[in-house]
């Protein structure tokens, strides 16, 4: 398949992830959707790397994966802390940033 197909798939995955971030209320699932978006970006990176034929995109994809892992670690740590405090695990309940 030409590279265009891979890019289309990556766009679809990214959009789906974005929708999921907005729609879901469980912060765990929101983080999962965040992962989706990252994966979509990864796919397009790999595709373009293949297009150009050098490895820069692949390295970047590896780094993105690393970052995603760190972010997951911190995010899950927060969720665990919230859970420990007996607060509801619901994104809508955490609204201290209101004006």
């Amino acid at each position, binding site marked *: *398949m*030409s*590279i*265009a197909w891979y*890019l*289309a*798939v990556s*766009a679809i*995955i*990214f959009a*789906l*992830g*974005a*929708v999921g971030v*907005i*729609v*879901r*209320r*469980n912060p*765990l*699932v929101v983080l*999962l*959707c965040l*992962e*989706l978006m990252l*994966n979509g970006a*990864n*796919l397009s990176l*790999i595709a373009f*790397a293949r*297009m*150009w*034929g*050098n*490895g820069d995109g*692949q*390295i970047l*994809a*590896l780094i993105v*994966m*690393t*970052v995603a892992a*760190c972010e*997951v*670690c*911190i995010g*899950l*740590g927060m*969720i*665990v*802390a*919230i*859970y*420990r*405090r*007996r*607060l509801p695990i619901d994104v809508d*309940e955490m*609204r*201290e940033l209101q004006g």
Partner: protein
Amino acid sequence: MSTLFFFLAAFGAIAGAIGVIALRDPFFSVLSLVAHLLSLAILFLLLRAEFVAAAQVVVYAGAVMVLYVFVVAYVGEADEAIGARLRSAGGANMRLAAAVLGGALLVELLIALLGSGLKAIEGYGAGYTPGPRTYGTPAYIGNLLLTRFLLAFEMASFLLLIAAVGGVVLARRRGGLEEETAEEEREFAPLELLRPQGTGTMAEGVTGLEFAASHSGGAEEEAKGPAESRRTPVAVGAAEQGDEHDSEGEDGR
């Protein structure tokens, strides 16, 4: 042949993505994401990114998702599905907005990616000759990581260290058997994670640390007077941070 695999993998990825956002139980979402990741790995393989595909499976699906599974098991509650009633303000609007925004984003991305007039994406990529150190092999990646992208490599490892420390700090237990005291629902402030329970409100100044003591000391300590609870400062097992806070509070009175 590769076309077939492509369509299978693409279908799997998209199906996994839809599963993540649509399934009610967060555990099933996680599993669906695992499936998605595996499909993505196949796509990577099709794009000659062997090492990245392996890393995806081992690290992403193997470690990160396992982490998720642990947390979901610890925390996980069933969330309402998308289609169910959403109590929060503007729930219906959220769905509509999400659909609209997602669709708009998709269209834009497609135009950007595909309509850019870049001829190369019509092709199959640059040429490829198989070999031990060619494009996509671990040796190739390793070479790049240790020469051109050394700084990024080192910084990524540094980042991982920070994340690890952060994770430990976030998730540690702090002071007493808090889960056993009955505590009314309070609004959650992210900064609350960084200071001892019961401090930071006017109650602290008005009633003294007895407030904090009563909240962190458990039911049996509520009978004690403020003086005694002051003598037994909060955060029995807490770190220095908690002690500093309490002693500051004492000095301030």
